[in-house]
């Protein structure tokens, strides 16, 4: 419990936007706090998206989306190298499903060139077949964007947070911001775990960024939740090399076939306006729409290879574009809001703009000479050659214990993830992929729970899937015996 902290900047929301902004600000001699309502960072839209680093040909020239997307894309290779995050520049192919769609490819190429997307070209029949032998025979041409890529989005947010914390940023998790009070030279940001007195606020609260704005009577934008479902295939299914897009329709970029940076194929997303901002349900209807559409692109994909599904909710603003600007209420508040797709791609560029806006509003950005942007490298045991694996076990025997057999994740990697900030079963899963494979934790979840319980010093019944209320086992053996009979008598 923090009582009242005095700080320079409070960032509200630990998605990819908030965490990268935090890491950017950690370059300077500043006191920065990031306040997140969930138990860990990255559990909003950031963990449930398509993971595509867009090239930038989809959005209208002159829009914030187009600008930050192209800039963000260019920053990705170096950023992911510094933070040691899975990233593949596998390229994007937007495919014409009929000859009539070829002129549309031309339009997007022209639009992309205006936006500054490098290397765009259209590939035809033979070259297309060579690039993607499994595409439907009815596809005749495609727009190739070589700068497109895929990233592990949760890993990126977790890595950015870890690096920010290593450089002095403070993280206040499980602390929803509930009120904001104006002071003479700043604000008091109030959470159930204490209040933060701050000069500047960065509003990166995703789906709830308009709710946050309302806390200081800012009604300049409104967020509409728009849900997207995604379905993930077993690693043994490798049908495409590039990320495959159809030609978009009026409302969305369409349903994609994505080879993820971690080696799975994923299909999705849908785009449906929903009533509830936390509606992360998957539906039979969503599945059907995705599958019908994907079938046109890659006919060999069969539902039997699916290992899991999820849904994420986009925070669409009523401006139809990102809101990256001061609040009309005060220049000491910067909104990074309405960051729907391509927000993941744009995030590194938005972080730079955030720092620039704060500077312009009077925040002194004095470089901190102790800043180190390189995250301590992560060991990914399964990717190493046998000799290196052998050397690791010799050095640390807990590399000799495989916990997750599907993804070959060792105990040492899980312990390391906890030391880097994982607090929950999902936190471990998203960081090191224990439980993310084909058996979806059926085998390793009890083991992961034991390690969490041991490392965090909490009982097994307090180990959660994703924070308070999501405990996975509720009772000790025999605890219920007797209790149940009483209930039966009452009922």
């Amino acid at each position, binding site marked *: 419990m923090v009582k009242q902290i005095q700080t320079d900047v409070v960032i509200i929301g630990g998605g990819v936007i908030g965490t990268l902004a935090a890491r950017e600000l950690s370059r300077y001699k500043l006191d920065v706090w990031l306040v997140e309502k969930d138990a860990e960072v990255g559990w909003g839209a950031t963990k449930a998206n398509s993971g595509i680093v867009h090239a930038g040909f989809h959005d209208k020239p002159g829009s914030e989306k187009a600008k930050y997307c192209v800039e963000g894309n260019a920053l990705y290779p170096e950023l992911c190298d510094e933070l040691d995050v899975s990233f593949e520049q596998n390229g994007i192919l937007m495919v014409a499903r009929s000859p009539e769609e070829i002129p549309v490819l031309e339009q997007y190429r022209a639009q992309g060139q205006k936006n500054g997307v490098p290397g765009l070209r259209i590939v035809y029949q033979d070259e297309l077949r060579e690039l993607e032998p499994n595409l439907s025979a009815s596809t005749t041409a495609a727009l190739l964007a070589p700068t497109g890529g895929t990233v592990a989005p949760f890993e990126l947010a977790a890595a950015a947070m870890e690096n920010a914390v290593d450089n002095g940023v403070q993280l206040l998790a499980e602390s929803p911001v509930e009120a904001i009070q104006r002071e003479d030279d700043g604000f008091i940001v109030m959470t159930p775990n204490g209040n933060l007195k701050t000069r500047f606020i960065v509003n990166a609260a995703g789906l709830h960024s308009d709710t946050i704005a309302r806390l200081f009577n800012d009604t300049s934008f409104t967020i509409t939740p728009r849900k997207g479902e995604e379905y993930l295939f077993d690693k043994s299914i490798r049908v495409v090399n590039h990320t495959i897009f159809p030609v978009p329709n009026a409302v969305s970029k369409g349903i994609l076939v994505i080879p993820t940076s971690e080696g799975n194929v994923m299909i999705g997303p849908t785009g449906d306006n929903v009533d509830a901002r936390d509606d992360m349900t998957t539906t039979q209807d969503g*599945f059907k729409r995705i599958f019908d559409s994907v079938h046109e692109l890659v006919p060999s994909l069969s539902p039997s290879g699916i290992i899991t599904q999820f849904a994420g909710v986009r925070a669409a603003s009523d401006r139809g574009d990102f809101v990256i600007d001061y609040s009309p209420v005060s220049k000491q508040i910067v909104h990074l809001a309405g960051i729907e797709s391509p927000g993941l791609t744009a995030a590194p560029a938005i972080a730079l703009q955030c720092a620039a806006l704060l500077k312009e509003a009077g925040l002194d950005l004095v470089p901190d000479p102790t800043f180190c942007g390189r995250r301590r490298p992560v060991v990914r045991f399964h990717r190493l050659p046998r000799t290196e694996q052998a050397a690791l076990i010799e050095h640390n*025997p807990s590399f000799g214990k495989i916990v997750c057999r599907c993804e070959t994740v060792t105990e040492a990697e899980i312990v390391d993830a906890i030391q880097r900030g994982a607090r929950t079963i999902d936190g471990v899963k998203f960081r090191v992929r224990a439980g993310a494979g084909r058996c979806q934790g059926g085998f390793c*979840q009890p083991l992961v729970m034991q390690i969490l319980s041991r490392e965090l010093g909490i009982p097994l019944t307090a180990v959660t899937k994703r924070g308070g209320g999501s405990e996975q086992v509720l009772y000790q053996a025999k605890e219920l015996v007797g209790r149940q009979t009483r209930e039966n008598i009452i009922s």
Partner: protein
Amino acid sequence: MKTLSADVLVIGGGPAGLSAALAAKQKGAKRVAILERNEELGGILQQCIHHGFGIHRFREELTGPEYAQRFIDELASSGIDVYLETMVLELTDKRVVYAINKDHGMLCFEAGAVVLAMGCRERTRGALRIPGHRPAGVMTAGAAQRFVNIEGYVPGQRVVILGSGDIGLIMARRFTLEGAAVEAVVEVLPYAAGLTRNVVQCLHDFDIPLHLSATVVEIHGRDRVEAVTIADVDAAWKPVPRTERTIPCDTLLLSVGLIPENELSVQAGIELDPITNGPLIDHTLMTSLPGVFACGNVLHVHDLVDFVSEEAETAGTNAAAWTDAQATQSRRIITVKAGESVRYVLPQYVSPEKTAKLYMRVTQPETNVTINIGGLFSLKQKSVRPSEMIQVKLTPKVLSRLDSDSLTVAVEREVENVG
């Protein structure tokens, strides 16, 4: 990296691995080793603390751990090398096996023959695509079994079980005995998937409702399961509109099938059968990779451990007798095929000169049928069920009557009067 060698190397120390290793040793293999990733031998049996193991083999009703212990005791004086907490990472097509262990580090085994005995894993929610939220409290029946029987925790107090496989049925009883309320067992098929004795002893005896031809169509609860909606299904397993009913619960167990664990086999280039998800084998239980044998749940999912042990003995015996020279011998091969109403038959290949045992499962429960074994002979059966494996012996004498290179096994019914 340490390099070791073995005449017969067994991957997996469950009941299949134990019996295979013991048989190989008895048949004279000098160096026999078992590699097991767990801290103890016995495989899945260690968490099956209920009775019902060994009825055929020992004519006793043992618990899982008791059954396993009989073999573990025998192993103690056998001279078989046991490597515990040793996970096999890779099997190559040259029968080189890489495994890791906390204390010994990376181990490399060069094996004369290899026996695959890795067992199986449970199907999970993702494979079923159950719509709804993804809260805590959804787990496989086997994971729940481990929590209750090994770790000493009860996942929840109001439970719905999807699937009436044996593990689900056993867990329905286990949860009830732990003081939890099992609200329903929901099965998509029009009959229970598990053994009849488990339906009686685990559901009927405890008045647990079994909903047949039904499935879970939605999971409710953001953080922890709060309820599930179930609905009846039609013949194509599609939910029937307006049959939905919602059952409040805090836990959803899945007992929706087991999948042989063949990652290592696939990596080594061993061919699998798309129906069993286990390797294609010949009458010696040898896979498509010469010198590599398979038995137990990694080969096909068994319901009774007694037959696992028996099958594994065959694999171990043949592994001990195997030499490189055999790989090049050419012989006549008969392909065994599953015909009408037969889900699968093992082995897929038999030799006309050798006795073979056929293992098969039917596709649906039926009464008064005949099983036609390639026209060579037929078996009259009062009742057949997919959950109960059927075994038939084929001798060279019988096989000599076959004048084709393939043999089809089919279920035949009494001729119906078509009006």
